[in-house]
């Protein structure tokens, strides 16, 4: 997540990416093995890039790739340094013009990668259909460490780390949070499925990385209550309050050296917030929920080995917008239990 601020805050990088390229962002974890045309295309690109053939210590292909629409890579790297990013883009543009200009001079048309027919990219059947809940309830999450009385974190990216994620709920699940009878003082316990999804998939310590989901048995306590505080026409104001306690011993093997690791991990979260329900549209028009409390421990992907805690962490839930980026899937969306009751 540090790369977002570092590489893409430079005005030249922003201008080049926005104006001279078609910028696209994807999670390469599924694409590295996905058995469909999109996965194959990503692998064609990745096997020309900076991590071509990379298997040690992992098979990651993450980074920055510039390429033609038919998959010829022009330049690629995995560095967040803004100057190197500018160099990468300028190299790519120089090579792009060589490809296009020489093709036009030789063949009379730009040819591969710069064809004028949009249907040159065929339709395909995705191996993983989108699970985006059309017309549903989409939240954007932000996670950050809260201030500590005694701060032992290194004064580098770790002290300033924060991260984003998304949470998806169906339209019916949104309604299930609101009391049936819209009268001030009425309360509604969130269904177990909602609390379970929040707990297992969204109260992860993802400030510094991408921890896996909490197992079911890690949920020691979980409740979320919505209370109607005001009704004005179709507009229903709700107060949200709850608590979720998660605890488990994490085990993993470090890929670098095969060493086994374990850690007691947990998050003792208090939930407080407010929301507005539009009874006519049967949708939330605002949703602000804070989950805050002490977290502890490390796991394979949360980068907390040097910060076991306990130390306070906050996760903010907010209604997502309508930009293409707001359709970004939750990190754990393809876990088999995500939408399972």
């Amino acid at each position, binding site marked *: 997540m540090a790369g977002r601020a570092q590489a893409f805050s430079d005005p030249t990088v922003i201008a080049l990416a926005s104006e001279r390229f078609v910028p696209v962002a994807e999670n390469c974890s599924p694409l590295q093995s996905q058995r469909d045309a999109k996965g194959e295309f990503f692998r064609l690109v990745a*096997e020309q890039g900076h991590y*071509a*053939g990379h298997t*040690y210590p992992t098979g990651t292909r993450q980074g920055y790739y510039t*390429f033609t629409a038919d998959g010829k890579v022009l330049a690629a790297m995995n560095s967040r340094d803004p100057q190197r990013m500018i160099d990468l883009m300028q190299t790519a543009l120089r090579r792009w013009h060589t490809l296009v200009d020489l093709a036009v001079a*030789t063949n009379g048309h730009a040819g591969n990668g710069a064809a004028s027919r949009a249907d040159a990219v065929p339709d395909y059947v995705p191996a993983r259909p989108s699970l985006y809940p059309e017309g549903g309830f989409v939240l954007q999450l932000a996670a950050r460490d809260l201030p500590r009385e005694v701060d032992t974190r290194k004064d580098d990216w770790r002290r300033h780390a924060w991260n984003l994620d998304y949470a998806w709920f169906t339209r019916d699940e949104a309604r299930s949070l609101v009391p049936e009878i819209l009268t001030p003082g009425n309360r509604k316990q969130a269904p177990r499925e909602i609390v379970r999804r929040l707990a297992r998939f969204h109260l992860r310590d993802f400030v510094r990385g991408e921890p896996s989901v909490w197992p079911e048995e890690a949920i020691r306590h979980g409740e979320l209550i919505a209370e109607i505080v005001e009704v004005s026409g179709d507009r229903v104001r709700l107060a949200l309050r709850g608590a979720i306690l998660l605890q488990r011993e994490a085990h993993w093997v470090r890929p670098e050296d095969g060493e086994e690791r374990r850690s007691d991990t947990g998050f003792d979260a208090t939930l407080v917030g407010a929301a507005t329900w539009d009874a006519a549209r049967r949708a939330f028009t605002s949703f602000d929920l804070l989950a805050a409390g002490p977290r502890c421990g490390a796991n394979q992907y949360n980068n907390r080995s040097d910060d076991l805690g306990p130390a306070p962490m906050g996760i903010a839930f907010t209604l997502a917008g309508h930009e293409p980026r707001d359709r970004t899937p939750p990190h754990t969306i393809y876990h088999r239990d995500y939408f399972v009751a």
Partner: protein
Amino acid sequence: MTNASRIPQTHRLILVRHAHSSVDPARPAREWGLADDGRAAARRLASLAVFDHAAGFYAGPEPKMLATLAPVAAEHGQQVQPEPGFAETHSEGWLGGEQFLSTVHRFFETPDQPPAPDWETAAAAAARFAAAVERLRARHAPVVHPGHALPATFAIASGGRMLTAYLSHLLGYSAERALEAWHRLKMPDIAVVELAATAPPRVVILFGTLAV
């Protein structure tokens, strides 16, 4: 920290079929250079990042092979090194049209027999090419960075029959598959092959995929 004993001993070959040559029936094919459109295509090859991690650029000694890879090597501040082991399969005399095609068919169908007088067999050519590859594998070690490693990669330009014979030998192609692969080759064309110490050889990028 990098653990040396865990670094995979893997090599990647970027195989390049030469660009369009300037055909001159009066001279042996091995002396032909590139046509104008072949030279332009060779310059387009230099725009491909697939070559950015190549530690060396090698070609059969024929001018068309050296000239195909020369702009790529120059883009990376290097020169193409001629390697006799990567020369096109040896042939003699000018065989036009149908006669040439039927000879090539025999070349793949009976790899242990010369398809025409004084032609090299497919088996002998593949062995020659493979021996040169092994010499280069000994010269190029995997690239070790702090905390991670990448395969050793080098580029080889050669001719269509030679590259197809090598891949057939390496991957066990049938005669039909070899002929089909040869027919589908473009000028120039690129394939990426991975040779690992602990896994069978595999084609990572097929010929025809990155046509320029």
